[in-house]
């Protein structure tokens, strides 16, 4: 009989771990406990589902045969407690599961608004498929919606509501969109695109309260005393990791579950992966949170392998990357590109986010329009610290390689900073050279 693994969560962290365990140990017993009745699906795909680009059934990456091939036991319930001494997980039905190794991959959840009226019917969020379906259902017949928050999720909700014919008023607290990550020009490009679609963007606008009629949303009040009628209020002010189970079990937690390089928690038989794990970034020596699909997959694979064998593989935080669509513009964000500080529209990290983007580097920012794309580079002394590419993505691939490999770009750094520099040619030229050196 092989080891018995219990994995809590049914997102990419847990599924990638299950695959890794199965590939390392054909005889292992793997039990996956997931509370979401829809099982495993792509959360980032919810944005395209909301925007009517893809039907619901296509959100599920694994077919029934694919799941069966992993030979898992799936328990569709919430885990309510963990007894680390007895190696047991307590389920909401009262059943208990015994484990040799446990993985916690419970993901993250939206931070609720803390204004009067936040409990009214018609206040929505976008965490999961039920939320997406709730937004779609409520959009039918809704005339107006107010969206508050920042970053990617807020815009995805704005676009989803717009695709369902709902007029949107989008509030942001500051002068511009996603201020600690995007440049002024980039923010304005996004806001202009939104405006062109009929979305009304309100800068310097605070949601002071939500006003109801018969328990349902009827309007919002702004900080400067305006009243805007609406049927829906969507809140995307950030997420926090779901650490409640781990904390109650006595595992060491910070913002997430504190893990070592092998993704082991403070209990050596309990691992964590995905959004909920808080490892140390070896680049900075500091603990770091990532709310990224690909990071969840990589953490899951690492934890799974270590659970199935012995702690052998270390997780490398690496340089984060996300590609997203901001008001219809394909946008890639790689590495450190921010202006430092936090975004007033967000109370934590947001979905598709990494702490790194908003970190202040000592790099020089260069912005240019090139080959159908708006490109911004953070150029350090010898390496590129980060980049933002909006529009045509061709240049984002060489940039990803150069930034993630921390390749030496000393030979082009001065030219990149010169007025009127041809950024695309310089970057592609250096990338080709770098590839040849690698080969």
């Amino acid at each position, binding site marked *: 009989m092989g080891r018995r693994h219990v994995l809590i969560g049914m997102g990419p962290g847990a599924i990638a771990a299950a695959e890794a365990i199965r590939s390392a140990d054909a005889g292992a017993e793997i039990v996956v406990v997931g509370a979401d009745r829809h099982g495993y699906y792509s959360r980032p*795909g919810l944005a395209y589902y909301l925007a009517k680009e893809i039907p619901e059934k296509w959100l599920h990456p694994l077919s029934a045969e694919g799941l069966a091939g992993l030979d898992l036991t799936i328990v569709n319930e919430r885990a309510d407690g963990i007894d680390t001494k007895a190696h047991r997980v307590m389920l909401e039905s009262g059943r208990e599961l015994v484990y040799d190794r446990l993985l916690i991959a419970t993901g993250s959840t939206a931070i609720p608004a803390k204004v009067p009226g936040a409990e009214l019917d018609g206040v929505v969020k976008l965490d999961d498929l039920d939320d997406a379906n709730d937004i779609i259902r409520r959009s039918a017949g809704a005339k107006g919606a107010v969206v508050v928050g920042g970053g990617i999720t807020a815009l995805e909700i704005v676009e989803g509501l717009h695709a369902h014919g709902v007029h949107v008023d989008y509030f942001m607290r500051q002068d511009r969109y996603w201020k600690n990550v995007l440049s002024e020009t980039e923010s304005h490009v996004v806001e202009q695109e939104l405006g062109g679609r009929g979305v009304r963007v309100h800068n310097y606008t605070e949601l002071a309260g939500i006003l109801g009629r018969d328990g349902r949303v009827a309007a919002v009040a702004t900080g400067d005393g305006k009243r805007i009628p609406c049927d829906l209020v969507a809140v995307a002010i950030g997420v926090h990791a779901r650490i409640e189970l781990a904390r109650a079990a006595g595992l060491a937690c910070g913002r997430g579950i504190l893990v070592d390089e092998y993704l082991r928690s403070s209990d050596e038989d309990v691992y964590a992966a995905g959004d909920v794990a808080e490892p140390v970034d070896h680049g900075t020596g500091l603990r770091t949170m990532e709310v990224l699909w690909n990071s969840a997959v990589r953490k899951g694979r690492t934890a799974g392998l270590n659970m199935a064998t012995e702690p052998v593989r270390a997780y490398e935080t690496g340089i984060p990357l996300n590609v997203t669509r901001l008001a219809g513009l394909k946008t890639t964000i790689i590495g450190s590109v921010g202006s430092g500080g936090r975004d007033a529209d967000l109370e934590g990290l947001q979905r598709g986010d990494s702490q790194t983007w908003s970190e202040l580097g000592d790099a020089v920012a260069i912005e240019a329009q090139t080959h159908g794309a708006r490109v911004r580079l953070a150029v350090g002394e010898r390496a590129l610290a980060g980049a933002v590419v909006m529009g045509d993505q061709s240049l984002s691939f060489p940039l990803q390689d150069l930034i993630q490999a921390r390749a030496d770009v000393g030979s082009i750094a001065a030219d990149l900073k010169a007025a009127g520099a041809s950024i695309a040619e310089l970057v592609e030229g250096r990338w080709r050279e770098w590839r040849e050196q690698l080969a």
Partner: protein
Amino acid sequence: MSWFKSDREKYAALATAWVLPEPSRCVQCGVCSFNCPIEIDVRRHVWLGEPVKDSRCLTCGECIKRCPRGLLRFEPIAATHGGRARGGR
């Protein structure tokens, strides 16, 4: 970079190229598989870090065009060194 632009390029692609993903950018949303006219599970290839080696592929470019994250492209078969995408497993 070999991005798919015209019919002429499409026929050239048919003979010499396949769809190659950049797996680290994929979020398994399924838009590519949904839009493939012959229902090749492009998303699964991306998860496994493999080019779309399926002999039925028409190299129509639909998956490339529709991927909201722009991570699919045509790549000359010879350039992929035996068919592993970057960052694939």
